[in-house]
Protein backbone atom coordinates (compact mmCIF):
# COMPACT_ATOMS: atom_id res chain seq x y z
CA UNK A 1 0.00 0.00 0.00
CA UNK A 2 1.36 3.41 -0.93
CA UNK A 3 2.01 5.81 1.90
CA UNK A 4 1.42 9.53 2.01
CA UNK A 5 3.02 11.09 -1.05
CA UNK A 6 4.27 14.65 -1.12
CA UNK A 7 5.90 16.72 -3.80
CA UNK A 8 8.24 18.32 -4.37
CA UNK A 9 10.80 16.94 -1.95
CA UNK A 10 12.86 20.12 -2.02
CA UNK A 11 12.15 23.66 -3.10
CA UNK A 12 14.35 26.72 -3.12
CA UNK A 13 12.74 30.04 -3.94
CA UNK A 14 13.47 33.70 -3.56
CA UNK A 15 11.51 35.67 -1.01
CA UNK A 16 8.28 37.20 -2.23
CA UNK A 17 7.80 34.37 -4.71
CA UNK A 18 4.85 31.97 -4.47
CA UNK A 19 5.24 28.28 -3.74
CA UNK A 20 2.88 25.32 -3.61
CA UNK A 21 3.11 21.89 -2.06
CA UNK A 22 1.05 18.86 -2.96
CA UNK A 23 -0.04 15.91 -0.85
CA UNK A 24 -1.78 12.66 -1.71
CA UNK A 25 -2.91 10.89 1.48
CA UNK A 26 -3.24 7.17 2.06
CA UNK A 27 -6.25 5.80 0.26
CA UNK A 28 -9.32 5.88 2.46
CA UNK A 29 -7.89 8.31 4.99
CA UNK A 30 -10.40 11.06 5.54
CA UNK A 31 -8.29 13.20 7.85
CA UNK A 32 -5.42 15.17 6.38
CA UNK A 33 -2.97 17.38 8.23
CA UNK A 34 -0.43 19.94 7.09
CA UNK A 35 2.41 20.56 9.53
CA UNK A 36 5.40 22.85 9.52
CA UNK A 37 8.52 21.71 11.29
CA UNK A 38 11.52 23.86 12.07
CA UNK A 39 14.89 22.40 12.93
CA UNK A 40 14.99 21.02 16.45
CA UNK A 41 11.27 21.40 17.03
CA UNK A 42 8.22 19.20 16.88
CA UNK A 43 5.69 19.51 14.06
CA UNK A 44 3.40 22.54 14.25
CA UNK A 45 -0.10 22.03 12.92
CA UNK A 46 -1.11 24.44 10.17
CA UNK A 47 -4.43 22.98 9.08
CA UNK A 48 -6.49 19.82 9.48
CA UNK A 49 -9.11 18.57 7.07
CA UNK A 50 -11.91 16.11 7.63
CA UNK A 51 -12.76 15.11 4.07
CA UNK A 52 -12.91 18.42 2.19
CA UNK A 53 -13.71 20.55 5.23
CA UNK A 54 -11.00 22.48 7.04
CA UNK A 55 -11.94 21.82 10.66
CA UNK A 56 -8.90 23.42 12.31
CA UNK A 57 -6.97 26.20 10.60
CA UNK A 58 -6.38 28.34 13.66
CA UNK A 59 -2.59 28.16 13.26
CA UNK A 60 -2.55 28.91 9.53
CA UNK A 61 -1.15 32.38 8.74
CA UNK A 62 -4.02 33.33 6.51
CA UNK A 63 -2.47 36.48 5.13
CA UNK A 64 -0.04 34.46 3.06
CA UNK A 65 -0.94 30.78 3.45
CA UNK A 66 -3.83 29.00 1.83
CA UNK A 67 -4.82 25.38 1.46
CA UNK A 68 -7.42 23.38 -0.31
CA UNK A 69 -8.56 19.80 -0.44
CA UNK A 70 -10.88 19.46 -3.36
CA UNK A 71 -12.93 16.27 -3.46
CA UNK A 72 -11.58 15.31 -0.05
CA UNK A 73 -8.51 13.50 -1.35
CA UNK A 74 -5.41 15.40 -2.54
CA UNK A 75 -4.47 18.66 -0.94
CA UNK A 76 -2.32 21.64 -1.81
CA UNK A 77 -0.73 24.17 0.50
CA UNK A 78 0.31 27.50 -0.96
CA UNK A 79 2.42 30.35 0.33
CA UNK A 80 2.24 33.70 -1.42
CA UNK A 81 4.42 35.62 -1.01
CA UNK A 82 7.06 33.55 0.77
CA UNK A 83 9.20 35.09 3.48
CA UNK A 84 12.61 34.08 4.79
CA UNK A 85 11.01 32.77 7.98
CA UNK A 86 8.93 30.29 6.00
CA UNK A 87 11.99 28.11 5.48
CA UNK A 88 11.08 24.80 7.11
CA UNK A 89 9.97 21.27 6.34
CA UNK A 90 6.30 21.04 5.44
CA UNK A 91 4.82 17.71 6.38
CA UNK A 92 1.55 16.19 5.28
CA UNK A 93 -0.04 13.41 7.30
CA UNK A 94 -3.26 11.44 7.07
CA UNK A 95 -5.32 9.23 9.33
CA UNK A 96 -8.64 7.45 9.41
CA UNK A 97 -11.64 9.27 10.79
CA UNK A 98 -12.26 7.30 13.92
CA UNK A 99 -10.97 7.28 17.46
CA UNK A 100 -7.53 6.04 18.35
CA UNK A 101 -5.79 5.98 15.01
CA UNK A 102 -2.30 7.12 14.34
CA UNK A 103 -1.28 9.62 11.70
CA UNK A 104 1.06 8.60 8.92
CA UNK A 105 3.44 11.13 7.46
CA UNK A 106 4.72 11.84 4.00
CA UNK A 107 8.39 12.51 3.34
CA UNK A 108 7.90 16.22 3.60
CA UNK A 109 8.93 19.16 1.46
CA UNK A 110 12.00 21.05 2.56
CA UNK A 111 11.47 24.70 1.65
CA UNK A 112 14.35 27.14 1.59
CA UNK A 113 13.54 30.80 1.03
CA UNK A 114 16.55 32.90 0.07
Amino acid at each position, binding site marked *: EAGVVQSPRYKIIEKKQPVAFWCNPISGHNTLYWYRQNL*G*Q*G*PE*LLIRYENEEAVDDSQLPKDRFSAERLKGVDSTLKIQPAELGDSAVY*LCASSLVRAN*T*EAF*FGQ*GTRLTVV
Partner: protein
Amino acid sequence: EDKVVQSPLSLVVHEGDTVTLNCSYEVTNFRSLLWYKQEKKAPTFLFMLTSSGIEKKSGRLSSILDKKELFSILNITATQTGDSAIYLCAVGEAGNNRKLIWGLGTSLAVNP
Protein backbone atom coordinates in the same frame (compact mmCIF):
# COMPACT_ATOMS: atom_id res chain seq x y z
CA GLU B 1 -2.99 25.21 27.98
CA ASP B 2 -2.47 21.68 26.71
CA LYS B 3 1.16 20.66 26.47
CA VAL B 4 3.48 17.73 25.97
CA VAL B 5 6.94 17.80 27.52
CA GLN B 6 9.70 15.42 26.60
CA SER B 7 12.91 14.75 28.48
CA PRO B 8 15.78 14.73 28.12
CA LEU B 9 16.07 17.05 25.13
CA SER B 10 19.17 15.23 23.98
CA LEU B 11 21.06 12.13 24.93
CA VAL B 12 24.35 10.57 23.86
CA VAL B 13 25.01 6.90 24.61
CA HIS B 14 27.24 4.08 23.44
CA GLU B 15 26.09 1.09 21.47
CA GLY B 16 24.65 -1.55 23.73
CA ASP B 17 23.37 0.89 26.33
CA THR B 18 19.73 0.98 27.39
CA VAL B 19 17.91 4.32 27.22
CA THR B 20 14.64 5.57 28.64
CA LEU B 21 12.90 8.54 27.09
CA ASN B 22 10.18 10.38 28.94
CA CYS B 23 7.01 12.10 27.81
CA SER B 24 4.68 13.88 30.22
CA TYR B 25 1.50 15.60 29.22
CA GLU B 26 -1.26 17.90 30.32
CA VAL B 27 -4.11 17.47 27.90
CA THR B 28 -7.74 18.11 28.75
CA ASN B 29 -9.35 15.41 26.64
CA PHE B 30 -6.81 12.63 26.31
CA ARG B 31 -7.41 10.02 23.63
CA SER B 32 -4.04 8.42 22.93
CA LEU B 33 -0.31 8.93 23.17
CA LEU B 34 1.89 8.26 20.18
CA TRP B 35 5.60 7.78 19.75
CA TYR B 36 7.36 8.54 16.49
CA LYS B 37 10.95 8.19 15.33
CA GLN B 38 12.30 10.91 13.06
CA GLU B 39 15.55 10.60 11.20
CA LYS B 40 16.41 12.96 8.36
CA LYS B 41 12.91 12.78 7.00
CA ALA B 42 9.32 12.49 8.14
CA PRO B 43 8.34 10.94 11.47
CA THR B 44 7.66 7.22 11.35
CA PHE B 45 5.12 5.72 13.68
CA LEU B 46 6.33 3.52 16.55
CA PHE B 47 3.58 3.02 19.12
CA MET B 48 0.14 4.18 20.09
CA LEU B 49 -0.88 3.86 23.72
CA THR B 50 -4.37 4.29 25.05
CA SER B 51 -4.52 2.21 28.24
CA SER B 52 -2.41 2.47 31.38
CA GLY B 53 -0.01 -0.26 32.34
CA ILE B 54 -0.08 -2.22 29.10
CA GLU B 55 3.37 -2.43 27.59
CA LYS B 56 3.73 -2.30 23.84
CA LYS B 57 6.82 -3.94 22.44
CA SER B 58 8.51 -4.04 19.07
CA GLY B 59 11.91 -5.68 19.00
CA ARG B 60 14.23 -3.71 21.24
CA LEU B 61 11.72 -0.90 21.71
CA SER B 62 8.97 -0.86 24.29
CA SER B 63 6.64 1.74 25.71
CA ILE B 64 4.16 2.08 28.50
CA LEU B 65 1.61 4.67 29.56
CA ASP B 66 0.61 5.88 33.02
CA LYS B 67 -2.65 7.79 32.74
CA LYS B 68 -2.76 8.54 36.45
CA GLU B 69 0.62 10.24 36.54
CA LEU B 70 0.22 11.49 32.95
CA PHE B 71 3.38 10.22 31.37
CA SER B 72 4.81 7.62 29.09
CA ILE B 73 8.27 6.14 28.67
CA LEU B 74 9.96 4.73 25.62
CA ASN B 75 12.69 2.18 26.31
CA ILE B 76 15.34 1.11 23.86
CA THR B 77 17.55 -1.79 24.90
CA ALA B 78 20.89 -2.78 23.36
CA THR B 79 21.01 0.45 21.38
CA GLN B 80 22.52 0.52 17.90
CA THR B 81 23.83 3.39 15.82
CA GLY B 82 20.71 3.08 13.67
CA ASP B 83 18.64 4.12 16.66
CA SER B 84 20.12 7.61 16.40
CA ALA B 85 17.18 9.88 15.68
CA ILE B 86 14.76 12.33 17.21
CA TYR B 87 12.00 10.60 19.13
CA LEU B 88 8.77 12.53 19.14
CA CYS B 89 5.85 12.11 21.49
CA ALA B 90 2.37 13.34 20.61
CA VAL B 91 -0.93 13.23 22.46
CA GLY B 92 -4.16 12.91 20.55
CA GLU B 93 -7.26 14.65 21.82
CA ALA B 94 -10.62 12.96 22.11
CA GLY B 95 -13.86 14.08 20.59
CA ASN B 96 -14.29 16.14 17.48
CA ASN B 97 -11.12 18.10 18.09
CA ARG B 98 -8.82 15.37 16.87
CA LYS B 99 -5.70 17.42 17.37
CA LEU B 100 -2.24 15.98 17.94
CA ILE B 101 -0.20 17.94 20.47
CA TRP B 102 3.50 17.44 19.95
CA GLY B 103 6.49 17.52 22.23
CA LEU B 104 9.79 18.98 21.06
CA GLY B 105 11.40 15.57 20.86
CA THR B 106 14.43 13.87 22.34
CA SER B 107 17.51 13.78 20.16
CA LEU B 108 19.29 10.47 20.67
CA ALA B 109 22.81 9.86 19.42
CA VAL B 110 24.21 6.35 19.69
CA ASN B 111 27.97 6.22 19.27
CA PRO B 112 29.81 3.07 18.20
